[in-house]
């Protein structure tokens, strides 16, 4: 059975999200683009195994995630190419949202082990539920919860953010956007 035009369109629409997930996971834009490419090819090849009406995004994220870990296992853990990352990011991202702040955040995120990083991304950024994230990662919901919790604590530690609002460079926008600390 051929791939439908609808399926192809859905794949196209999913690319920005897939790319965001791939970059967050691999912390390398080049590797991320290769991962997205592999994911699209695999998704196309096994399109018949996708149940129409179910969560395509989750299905695609699962393929991408499996590909990421499978490549990692084959190559062994490579040293992060931080120069490559910085160069690629400068080329790709315009300065918005306080570039320095986000660079601090990115490097903090990079320090997390992959399982914690992917958990906090899936829950806190990609918009999946705990149940969906657990399916994508092939583990229990409780495992996702504890990884998210550990990731969050670790990020706070690295960035020296307390549980209360931090009066950092974006203090003004913080005051405007939120109520006084509870």
């Amino acid at each position, binding site marked *: 059975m051929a791939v439908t035009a609808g399926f192809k369109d859905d*794949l196209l629409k999913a690319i920005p*999200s897939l*790319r965001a997930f791939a970059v967050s996971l691999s912390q390398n834009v080049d590797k991320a*683009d290769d991962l997205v490419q592999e994911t699209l090819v695999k998704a196309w090849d096994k399109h018949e195994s996708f149940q129409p009406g179910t969560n395509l995004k989750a299905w695609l994220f699962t393929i991408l995630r499996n590909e990421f870990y499978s490549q990692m296992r084959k190559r062994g853990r490579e040293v992060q190419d931080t120069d490559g990352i910085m160069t690629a990011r400068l080329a790709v991202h315009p300065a918005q949202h306080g570039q320095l702040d986000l660079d601090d955040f990115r490097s903090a995120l990079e320090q997390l082990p992959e399982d914690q990083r992917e958990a906090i991304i899936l829950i*806190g950024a990609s918009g999946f539920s705990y149940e969906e994230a657990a399916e994508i990662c092939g583990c229990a919901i409780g495992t996702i919860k504890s990884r998210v919790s550990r990731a969050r604590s670790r*990020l706070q530690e690295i960035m020296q953010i307390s549980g209360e609002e931090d009066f950092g460079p974006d203090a003004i926008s913080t005051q405007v956007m*939120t109520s006084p600390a509870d």
Partner: protein
Amino acid sequence: MKTLDKNTTASAPGRESRTADPLGPNSEIGRKLKQYYDDLVHDEVPDRFAELLGQLERAETAQDKD
């Protein structure tokens, strides 16, 4: 289904979200995470992916003719 929707709690300061969301809009980490991720989502997508899908489609059409 629990999803994190930017629109739900931002306009109700001080109100606890349904389950005191540790990554919600009152969380510094949550906000930075979303900013970081949204920048990535809104990045320009290289042409290679649309081209790839076009190639896959043409390859399939060619096979179907047999």
